[in-house]
């Protein structure tokens, strides 16, 4: 009997003590720059593994029967600036998408020009980093077409999307590499579920890069910039969430 009590007590205090040690130890490690950067390095191996396994494989596409009845609006719900409100009021009639940076021919494309290009329609699953998913239909020109029209210079390595919204005063932006930029399912969507993109979902233009998580799907895209590197732009990590909270730049997992 006494043995059982002793063991039970041992188990109890042991578990509590170990738990406390583990917790404070993990928090300390979490704040340690070298340990953190080692973990982040191991995280980036998933990008290599996914490229190795998948190559330019397509994300799964679904049928109209699979659509989410109510696609959750997340992140910014309205950029809220006077300039943006004026564009909403005129149905984006005077709005143009700027394409610049390391390109031969900078462009200013109105919505009509984007709609006149060859279009791709895809029903895909939007996977948020938080864990939820929603299925929607997206419609727009492939980003690759737009970039080819502008003509990338050889030094270009990244495509940056500058957005009309800001979170806590920091402008929203995102970036992808050329492998994803020229992937067939990477489109600049101006329609969702057969309707012009709503303000909540990123009117007039939203990036769809289907093999990555939701925070890469930049809404309110105003400008597409080709760059040689991400350093020197805002926080230098290639996106709002990457800069603000250390989310992974490659969000394939």
């Amino acid at each position, binding site marked *: 009997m006494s043995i059982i009590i002793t063991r039970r007590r041992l188990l109890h205090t042991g578990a509590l003590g170990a738990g406390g040690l583990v917790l404070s130890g*993990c928090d300390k490690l979490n704040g340690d720059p070298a340990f953190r950067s080692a973990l982040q390095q191991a995280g980036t191996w998933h990008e290599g593994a996914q490229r190795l396994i998948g190559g330019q494989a397509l994300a799964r596409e679904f049928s109209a029967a699979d659509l989410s009845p109510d696609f959750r609006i997340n992140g910014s719900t309205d950029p809220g600036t006077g300039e943006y409100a004026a564009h909403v009021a005129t149905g984006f009639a005077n709005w143009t998408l700027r394409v610049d940076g390391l390109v031969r021919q900078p462009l200013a494309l109105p919505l009509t020009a984007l709609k006149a290009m060859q279009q791709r329609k895809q029903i895909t699953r939007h996977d948020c980093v938080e*864990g939820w998913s929603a*299925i929607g239909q997206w419609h727009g020109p492939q980003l690759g077409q737009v970039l080819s029209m502008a003509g990338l210079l050889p030094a270009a390595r990244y495509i940056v999307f500058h957005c009309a919204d800001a979170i806590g005063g920091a402008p929203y932006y995102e970036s992808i590499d050329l492998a994803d930029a020229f992937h067939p399912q990477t489109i600049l969507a101006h329609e969702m579920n057969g309707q012009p993109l709503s303000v909540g979902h990123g009117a007039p233009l939203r990036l769809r890069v289907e093999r990555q998580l939701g925070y890469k799907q930049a809404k309110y895209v105003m400008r597409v910039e080709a760059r040689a590197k991400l350093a020197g732009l805002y926080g230098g990590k290639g996106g709002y969430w990457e800069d603000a909270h250390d989310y992974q730049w490659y969000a394939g997992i």
Partner: protein
Amino acid sequence: MSDTGGNNPKGGDLVRRHRLSTRLWHWANALGVFVMLMSGMMIFNAHPRLYWGEFGANPDMPWLTIGNADGVAFPGLLTIPSQYSLADARIWHLAFAWILLIGAPLYLIWSLVNGHLRRDLWFARAELSPSHLWHDIKEHARLRFPTGAAALNYNMLQKGAYLGVLLVLLPLVILTGLAMSPGYDAGLPVSALFAGRQTARSLHFIAASGLALFIVVHLVMVVLAGPFNEVRSMITGRYRLPVGKGAEP
């Protein structure tokens, strides 16, 4: 196999118990699973709702919600990090995932090759009779553990638990993890395999809960069976066979 007991080891003998591959995998797995569970609970806190099917978000009907709509499901005492941070939990989760992604298939293959799975873990024909099973359950429930050479074999409940972890829970938690990743899912048909990403996420949670339950029972059993001898056997490989009541010294 035994050091002092020759071919007929008896209670009190120090015998070789766990081979190197098992010991290495045990501790790598223990570290990996603990970090995955703790960082996983923090990731779950970001959206503490589970759905069946391909999609599922706030407008949809969950089958399980823990905590209130935007409350915290798991307290900081259980999570990595202890303060809310989805981004930091993901940094841990995606790095330590490699231990399971690489270690589990390697250990499984090696256990097939060296016979560990067939000899030590798989159910022998004679063990599958209801009376034998009932005997093991009764003995186990009364905390009467085998002594002498009999302690070298796992009972049916142990075999079931270890096989369940190795062949069911770990493969399930790994595959459903891959199914949630849009990048892996494009190259491998994993979310389709589980009939939808949200189903895969639910199964990921269920498999992880199964691993957590296994760990609790496992740790309790280690303490009841003699923690020093058990932990030593998993570090050095050597195990002192328990002496039965009435056995000669």
